[in-house]
């Protein structure tokens, strides 16, 4: 029988319960895993987003900077709501609402009209423009469009306008962050280099990081040193602003003057080094002073290195207060080592954070078992492998570059681990495997305040130890037989 669409008409069927049971078991098998790892075209549950999301984060990180999406308004809505949900904070950004006719005429009219309106309505100190798919496909020439806008007087002569090409079909949110940051710094520092001038400050480039607590911790560390600094760029007040009855469209961010003058800095530290690689490349060639690129200070060793670098660059010793904090963090690790020692972890996330978690886990005698990066590279893999090779606890670690969370699920269901470190998207695997998920990554849509707790530095070590070990203890408390339910743990 065929219907009036010319399609065959079949009866409505129900999938038999046995069939569902069979597949339920099958997807947990080695056989399925092998099939799953043969995938070449289909990507299922990859834990990375596209470039413009990262670009928006960078665009928010500077005083009075209005993130401006050159593209469809739908894209902007997606980026904004992701940041809203993660931080539970506003994320004001505009788009120039390109539609079909953009494909025909290009996006210059939208950009110009958008700039005119945005500047009138939202009174930014600077505009930070980045692109979503459409203008990237049709090949809009942002540089020319903005020049024209200036010529037409749409943009005040003294208002910085940064712009970055952030194609979604390339890299991830991390690369978009890098591109936008680079453009912002280029536009703010243009012509600001003064021969012989030194601000005396250390510039810090933390890269894509959606933990406001980390930023506050960086600042606290520099303050403890008594070393002046400029963070490029600083999201801490932007995405952790007070609720006091006043809505601030621009709630913080690196001061534009400081950013402009950062080119005359005493030194520049790039943390990552994968998260802001392009920016750092440019900084090294263009910024005054010394330069250093080093891993995120996650765990003791990498924090030590960070502090020693500040010490070296500033000529000041590591303050006693931080040394005492170090001792307290090592104390916390030692007191709790038995709850983590030998425990297997599956990790996924952005390259630099993965490197940090691996380093921290090895310091605790825990086993980074699966390390997955959906947008990794040979270089990232090499770096992680070197870390694994440095410790007896790294021997079992396996690295998966360019794989997704559906691969991760197969790994965990066929070769179990004790816990996962990742972002909210891993919760379905965690549930299926009945193991905890530690939400150290981005985004976190289903817990409150976690972005307020630093993971970097010695305080970050204590926070990670506390979160992980207390959860493991809690699992024992909640799942043990009555006769093993005890007062002390």
């Amino acid at each position, binding site marked *: 029988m065929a219907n009036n669409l010319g399609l065959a008409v079949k009866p409505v069927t129900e999938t038999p319960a046995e069939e569902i049971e069979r597949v339920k078991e099958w997807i947990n098998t080695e056989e399925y895993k092998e099939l799953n790892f043969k*995938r070449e075209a289909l*990507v299922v549950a990859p834990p990375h987003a596209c470039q413009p999301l990262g670009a928006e984060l960078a665009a928010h990180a500077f005083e009075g900077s209005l993130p401006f999406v050159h593209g469809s308004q739908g894209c902007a809505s997606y980026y904004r709501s992701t940041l809203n949900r993660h931080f539970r*904070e506003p994320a004001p950004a505009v788009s120039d609402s390109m539609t079909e006719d953009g494909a025909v005429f290009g996006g210059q009219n939208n950009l110009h009209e958008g700039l005119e*309106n945005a500047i009138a309505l939202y009174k930014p100190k600077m505009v930070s423009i980045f692109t979503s798919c459409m203008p990237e496909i049709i090949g809009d020439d942002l540089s020319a469009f903005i020049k024209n806008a200036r010529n037409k007087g749409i943009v005040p002569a003294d208002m910085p306008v940064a712009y970055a090409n952030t194609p979604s079909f390339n890299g991830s949110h991390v690369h978009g962050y890098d591109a936008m940051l680079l453009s912002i710094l280029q536009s703010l520092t243009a012509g600001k280099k003064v021969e012989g001038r030194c601000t005396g400050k250390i510039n810090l480039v933390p890269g894509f990081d959606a933990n406001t607590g980390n930023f506050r911790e960086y600042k606290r560390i520099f303050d403890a040193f008594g070393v002046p600094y400029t963070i490029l760029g600083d999201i801490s007040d932007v995405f952790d602003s007070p609720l*006091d*009855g006043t809505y601030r469209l621009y709630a913080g961010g690196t001061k534009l003057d400081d950013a402009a003058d950062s080119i005359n800095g005493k030194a520049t530290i790039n943390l990552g080094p994968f998260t802001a690689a392009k920016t750092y490349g440019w900084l090294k060639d263009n910024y005054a002073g010394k330069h250093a690129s080093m891993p995120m200070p996650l765990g003791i060793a990498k924090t030590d290195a960070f502090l020693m670098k500040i010490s070296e660059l500033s000529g000041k010793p590591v303050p006693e207060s931080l040394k005492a904090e170090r001792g307290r963090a090592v104390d916390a690790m030692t007191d709790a080592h038995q709850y983590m020692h030998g425990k297997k972890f599956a990790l996924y996330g952005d390259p630099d954070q993965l490197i940090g978690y691996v380093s921290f886990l090895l310091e605790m005698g825990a086993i980074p078992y699966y390390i997955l990066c959906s947008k990794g590279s040979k270089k990232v893999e090499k770096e992680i492998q070197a870390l694994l090779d440095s410790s007896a606890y790294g021997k079992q670690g396996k690295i998966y570059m360019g794989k997704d969370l*559906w691969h991760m699920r197969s790994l965990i269901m066929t070769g179990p681990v004790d816990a996962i470190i990742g972002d909210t998207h891993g919760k379905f695997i965690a549930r299926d495997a009945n193991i905890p998920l530690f939400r150290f990554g981005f985004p976190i849509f289903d817990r409150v305040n976690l972005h307020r707790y630093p993971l970097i530095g010695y305080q970050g070590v204590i926070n990670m130890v506390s979160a992980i070990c207390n959860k493991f203890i809690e699992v024992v408390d909640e799942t043990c037989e009555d006769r093993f339910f005890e007062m002390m743990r």
Partner: protein
Amino acid sequence: MSKTIQKVEGITKESTQEMIDKVLAVYPEKGRKKRSPHLAPNDPESGSACVKSNKKTVPGVMSARGCAYAGAKGVVWGPIRDMVHVSHGPVGCGWYSWGTRRNLMSGTLGVDQFAMQFTSDFQEKDIVYGGDKKLKQLLVETKELFPLAKGISVLSECPVGLIGDDINAVAKQSAKDLDIPIIPCNCEGFRGVSQSLGHHISNDTIRDYIIETREFPEPVGPYDIALIGEYNIGGDAWSTKPLLEECGFNVKSVWTGDGELEKIAATHQVKLNVIHCYRSMNYMCKVMEEKYGIPWIELNFFGPTKIKQSLRKLAELFDDTIKEKVEAVIAKYDPQMQAVIEEVRPRLEGKKVMLYVGGLRPRHTIGAYEDLGMICVGSGYEFAHTDDYDRTAPEMPDATVVYDDASELELEEFAKELKPDLVASGIKEKYVFQKMGLPFRQMHSWDYSGPYHGYKGFPIFARDIDMAINSPTWSLVKSPY
């Protein structure tokens, strides 16, 4: 569902227009000219739209709108639980719409339910050489790894249309090769002015690829209906479907909340389509009416007053069996609802709410607030059409402000002027208003609560609104020093 015209103390056509003019004054001339027709005081008596709508968003204004892809993936297709929905193009669109709409689903993830994000994760080379080949391969892999999927939707993202891929041809061929429905949906985000076109395109693909491809094995009964435009946000459908069943109906399919492809495909057999979200699915109701002679009726499941009216209106179309059951249902639940109202209303009486949402909520929820003693002082839609505003006019008090595709600045300024006790809008607005010290509920996602539909939903709605407005945290906003 008409009602007497309501007035709000202190709000007149003039005061509202003044407020509008004040915010318009901030715009450059061109922008002001464009925005002006979208802002107006309500005229309930006219019974028709006081604003223009469904126009291009003014560039640069901080709109809350989404895109056609969002309307297709997030709204219409995404909730169908037994299909794989492939976000075809770069990774982002599928990632952003992954688990962020709260259209709950039965079944087991990855087995007979597929709420993961499926993407072709376009890379530079896919842009340069086209993605059709990749799509073909992807469909094979999908079928292999997810054998219980009843079908696959291919939802195009912007690049697909711009580089000239032909997903329709690929879908057609693969559907044949793999013996599974594969629905290509050309819902590129650049199409149209908002998510609304995505709904329409999706409706059209249902028409073109789905409807009438299946038949229920059992004979058609007199009380067979379909529930259209019910997306099961926070479990809404698990309130409304049982309610209709309690009233004597057989709800043969739900479009598309916790939806099943084959039941949707057999919906041409029902006797009546009951539509809740008119905006996103009126197209298919009209198609089914034209093609299969199925009448449709718009109902409102928010708040006991509207539910009661809706059920009676529905019963009117049926025989005494249904009428009696409906009255029995009302007699059973109404006292429970009145008890909720008695508990909460004293704390909410006279409180003002400002709405800015999508779909049906800017008009459909007004009655529920009124059940709680509250007054709506402003309302508007992200992506409505004139017919939505026509339907809104009689629901809102006289001269209250109506805003279409409002910009954040407009909403902020209106809120400063109107001083509502609650703002009910979306995630992008939530924290803006909370920072201003204004209680807020996300009314796209029920703010991670729900259901809000039906008798099961109203007590939860009432509790949430009470909690939002009366949370003691608000008294802490102002520092004593």
